[in-house]
Every structure is written in structure tokens, then in C-alpha cells.
């Protein structure tokens, strides 16, 4: 079975696979598999493995990215529709202008329409989230669903993003760990042949992912809060 077939079948059957195998596929090929398996109109992109420590661990020198389709932006989360959901507090950028490959930093700054608190509801087919870079890329970087905050922020908030499940602090990390958003957008625009106005880019998580559980989800930052219910079914 090829990597492409394995991912397709696991997604279809909603089952997990043993990862960390050598499928004889490079990173570029993994992105082609991602594009073929997750086609359709794009609402935007997500960045993964944004910390250098994680990148080194995976043998990478840059983040990875995945595709975000309109149906992946959620109003509420129903956990039963995920295979093995995990949560990460994130920041997202909504673009107000196109951003061509090779654009200058000033253009990227002008293209930023605003920042929003966000939650990445990860969903990997790879058992226990143990995978190689190629495996996670082919699986659309564990793309599950996303929640977006309601309040536009003109700049990334200071301090930490804190994610609470039913009032218990589940994970947190410093916003600074996300790196420079402008640099990220320029990098991504180069990778994907340009970004479009009104697309949303999830900038990755500064905190370790945590398993989801039903109840109230909150993400707190110095600049506001995102709240959503997580339903069992």
C-alpha cells in the first residue's frame, strides 16, 4: 500500500494507522499527496511545527503547512466526528489583500487584515500522533477543524495563550514562540504560489497539543478570550 492509499483509506474508514514508517516518499511528494487527497476550494492554510525544536526533532528546517477548506471552520465542535481530536491554542491571520510569491515584508504587513484567537482541533490518522514529516504532511498536517475568535485584534497579543478545558488549564505557551507573522506569511506565499485576500492562515501553536474532552473550551490571551462548547456527539 502506498502512503497515498493508506491515508485515503484511513480517512475514509476513520481509523488510525501505525506511523513512523518509511514509505519511500520525500517531502515534496508528500505535499503532492496532500493536494490530491484534500482538493477543492481553499479557505486558507495552517502552519505546523513552527518551533525550531519541533522542526529539529522531525528533521526539518522549516514549518510545514496544510490546507484549510471552508467546512473546516467550525461554529461548534462535535468530538464524535473526529478520529483522535487534540486541541491547540493558536492565532490566525485574515488577509485583506492578495500576497504574491516573492512579495516584500511591507506588502505582507499591508495584506494583514487582522489577528484572531483560534483553536486548531487537530485530527491525525497516525496512532498517538507518532508520525514522520512526510506522513503528517500527506495527512494534511493533522487537519481537523478550526475555531475562530469573534474579536479582531490589530496585533498579536502579548504574553501567553492559555487553553482551558472545563476551567482547568490544559496547555499554554508564549505568543512569541509563534515567530514573526510577516516572515511566516512570506514563507507560506512562496510555498503555495501566493495567498488570496480573505484567506485565513493559522499561525501554529505555541503550546503542546492536548486531548479534547467534552465541555467548555476557552482560550485566554491578554487581548480577549475565545469560548466554545465541545459536544460529545
Amino acid at each position, binding site marked *: 500500500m502506498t502512503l497515498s492509499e493508506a491515508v485515503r483509506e484511513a480517512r475514509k474508514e476513520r481509523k488510525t494507522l501505525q506511523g513512523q514508517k518509511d514509505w519511500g516518499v520525500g517531502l515534496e511528494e508528500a505535499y503532492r499527496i496532500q493536494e490530491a487527497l484534500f482538493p477543492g476550494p481553499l479557505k486558507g492554510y495552517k502552519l505546523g511545527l513552527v518551533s525550531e525544536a519541533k522542526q529539529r526533532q522531525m528533521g526539518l528546517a522549516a514549518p510545514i503547512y496544510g490546507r484549510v477548506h471552508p467546512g473546516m471552520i467550525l461554529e*461548534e465542535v462535535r468530538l464524535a466526528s473526529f478520529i483522535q481530536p487534540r486541541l491547540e491554542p493558536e492565532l490566525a491571520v485574515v488577509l485583506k489583500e492578495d500576497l504574491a510569491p516573492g512579495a516584500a515584508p511591507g506588502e505582507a504587513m499591508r495584506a494583514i487584515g487582522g489577528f484572531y484567537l483560534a483553536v486548531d482541533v487537530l485530527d491525525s490518522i497516525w496512532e498517538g500522533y507518532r508520525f514522520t514529516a512526510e506522513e503528517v504532511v500527506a495527512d494534511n498536517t493533522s487537519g481537523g477543524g478550526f475555531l475562530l475568535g*469573534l*474579536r479582531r485584534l490589530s496585533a498579536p497579543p502579548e504574553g501567553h495563550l*492559555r487553553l*482551558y478545558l*472545563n*476551567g*482547568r*488549564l490544559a496547555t499554554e505557551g508564549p505568543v512569541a514562540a509563534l515567530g514573526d507573522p510577516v516572515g511566516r506569511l512570506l514563507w507560506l506565499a512562496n510555498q503555495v504560489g501566493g495567498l488570496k485576500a480573505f484567506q485565513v492562515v493559522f499561525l501554529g501553536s505555541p503550546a503542546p497539543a492536548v486531548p479534547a474532552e467534552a*465541555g*467548555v473550551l*476557552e482560550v*485566554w490571551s491578554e487581548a*480577549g*478570550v*475565545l*469560548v*466554545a*462548547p465541545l459536544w460529545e456527539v
Partner: protein
Amino acid sequence: MVEPKLYKETVERLKALGFPYELPLEVTHYIGGEFVRGENFFPVIYPATGEVIATAPEGREKEVDLAVAAAKEAFAKWGKMPPSQRRPYLRRFADKIREWRPVFEVVETLDVGRPIHENRLGYVDRMANNIEFFADFAVTHGSEAYPMENGYINYVLRFPVGVAALITPWNMPSMLATWKIGPTLAFGNTAVLKPAEFTPLGAWLLAKAAHEAGLPPGVFNVVHGFGPNSAGEFLTRHPDVRLISFTGETTTGRIIMKNASDTLKRLSMELGGKAPNLIFESADLDRAVEVTMRASFFNQGEVCLAGSRLLVQRSIYQAFVDKLVAAAKALKVGDPLDPETRMGALIAQEHLEKVMSYVEIARKTATILTGGRRPELPHPFDQGYFLEPTVVVDVKPSDKVCQEEIFGPMVVVMPFDTEEEAIELANNTPYGLNAIVQTREVGQAVRVSEALEVGTVWVNDWFVRDLRVPFGGAKQSGIGREGGHYGYEFYYETKNVCLANK
């Protein structure tokens, strides 16, 4: 008025949690199964920011008459139902409360200014359980029989009384409302709830829950308003109200008793407190500090049961006070909706001023070890009614701050030498609601618990509630007991049937 930015965010939070109603809130009465718009609106203020977050109508004679009439009409059917037929209605009510748990958690914080963290420590479960427990209790409990030796047998029958006025305070509004609603309805009475004017939101949401749960119209009604010359007074004077369950200040309790005496209403009164918290040298010091922190500063100390008079045995006095002050200094005061916050805002400007007046007395006559100031908080919380947790020492037992209920985050600490002295100090107030005894010596716990003139003693803990056990105050802290069958005297009419068997 503060720009209502935070309110907008909170509205967004509520909507995100599935809050089923339109905002901003215009609180309505709930009379005879209908939400009645009312008149004479007054503002509802979020204590943490001073923002107006809703408006509520003041009920006058008209609304009270309508609500009591609706309750009386509903009583004709509800009171005749066997408990097992009432139970499914009440269970649905309890389920609805649980279903709206996240919304109740936020709304309770908006009402009171309490940290949402405290609402998540089982508060909503306790609300639902208050109703469910009594629904089951009414079904499962029998009554007594007294066979006589000379050919007679007595047996006891119990009947519901009629329309109950439930008058609840602002400190634990939803908890105390359900505490009364549960036995009132389960034992077959019908109710008109008059919540405190500072906290109408929780009562309004309870009415929504009751309505969605399909409670028959008129069984449960809510009329908003104030006390004197307002909904509270009209209810307590109303000839068709047969029982009044009141929780609140002792002074208000006296007025209600006077109002109720013309029509001989039944009264259950849970009034003020000035609970002693006795810490003996054998106590586990760290645990004693933890229990004391909760008993002192839970809900900003706005709890009738607060252990606000600390009596500490001299041999451990300094060590205990040092630890307590350190813990009080570390308590995070601020945005009550932030899950990390451990103390929120006092209920209202006028209440903050009242508490501050005790702080000022302490500043002159005693020593403030920590607190006594308003914390510096970022906007919009700089507009809220916050006060740092405050620990006062060098007081005399007769001092005003040791005798009167402060109802805020301020405790006084006094040393004692012997057990006898501790008991004497503990009993030395007009109040007798409850006490805390912290010791690892069993005999001492037994002796001291017996000697305290109070309705409830907690040994090595605080605020633990079993709905089967009697709850109420001694001395000036109340009249009557509620909980389990102890509430029968109040909620039921009792009849003895004496039968000749030959």
C-alpha cells in the same frame, strides 16, 4: 457609565456557549407560565466593571397580586398531585439546569462578581441536586405511626401548605433559589421567587429553565424588585401567601416577621452570621490555613456561613497567622471570568463602602496585616468593587469588627489559651449560624462541637452540604431548620389521625 466593551465580549461568550436568548438582557418577570415585561426598570450592574449589563423591572402590587394568584390557582392541581407525579417535572427542571451549566456559570458571575472558578467547583450540580434531591425525597419518605396500648393507633399525614414566597439574597442567588424551590415544589407547594435586586439574572434564567422543562404554569413564578415598599414587602404582606422562606440579613428578617404576623404566615429564616473558626494547636496547620482561606474569602467573604472570626490557640498563633497572611497575599484578585482568578468583586458600590467602613474602624483600633485596600487592576476592572483579602489582628472580642457581620473579604484573628476560653469567645456574639472547629483531637472536636451555640458545626472543613441534614441558625441567625425531613415542619401541613381499632 463605563463603555460596555467587556459586556459585549461577555455576550459573545454566552452566545458561543449556546445561550438560547437574545442579548442585551431585558429581564422579565415570570408569572403564570409567561414572561411578563414589567415596568419601572432598574439597572443591573456587573460588579467587576461597574457596567450596566441588563435592566430589570420592579414588581409592584399588581405583579405580586398576579403572581400570587397564578401560584394559588396552580396549587389547586399541583398540591393534589402525588409526589411521584411531580417528580418527573422537577427532574426535567434539574436536567435543564445541568444542560445549561456553562451559561449558569457565566451568568452567576455576572450577577455576583464571583470568580467563575468557584462556580465550577460543583455549583451548578448543587443547584440541580437541590431540586432533584427533594423530588426523590418526597417520593421515598413515609410518615410515622404511633400505636397506643389501649386500642388506638395514630398516624401522621402531611399535606402541602399553599403559596410560598421565596426571598433570596444576592450572594449565592441561584444556589439559594434552588435550595428553596426544591423542597417547596417537591412537597407540593407553589412558589413566587423574589430575588435580590442586585442579582436578577440567575432567577430569570431559572425561570427560563423551568419554562423549557415544562413546569405547569403558575407552579413557579418570579417577580423582581426591591424589599421595602416593593415586591418583597407586598409578597410578605399578601394574604394568600402561606409561607415565607427568607435568607438574608437579620434586620430584614425582623421586618419580614412583622409584616407576616398579620396573616400568621409560616416562616423559615436563615439570617446573618459571624461564624467562629476555632483553630486548636493539634490542627494540621496547612490544612487549617487552606480551610480558613476558603471559609474567609470564598465569594469575596460574602457568605452568611463565612468563618470570619478566627480564634487561634496561642502556641500556634504566630505560625498560623504568618501562613494565612502569605496565602491571602497570594490570592489572585481580578477579572472574575478569568479561570485563574480566585477572588472577584463585591456586589455593589454601597456594599463596598459598608465593608470599607469596617476596614477604616480596623485601621484605627486594630492592626491590618494585609489587605484593606482596593487592588490596582487594569481597565475596566478599575471600575469594579474590588477589595484585597484583609486580615485584621489586635482586636478585642467586644470590638464592632468582632461582633457585627461584615459580609466581605475581611477576617479578624484573636488568640486564646484554653479550650474553655475559645468556647466562650466563640459564643460571644448575637449570632449562631455555624462554626468551624479545627483540631486533630477527637475528644476536643466532640466537646467543643457540643458547647457551641450554633446550627451547624464543621470539623476540619467548611461549606459541605448534605441535603438530608438540618440546616439553620441558632440565636439571632434564624428560625427553623431546612433539609431532609427537618423541612417538614415548614413546608408541610401535618395532620394526626387517631383511629379506634375496636
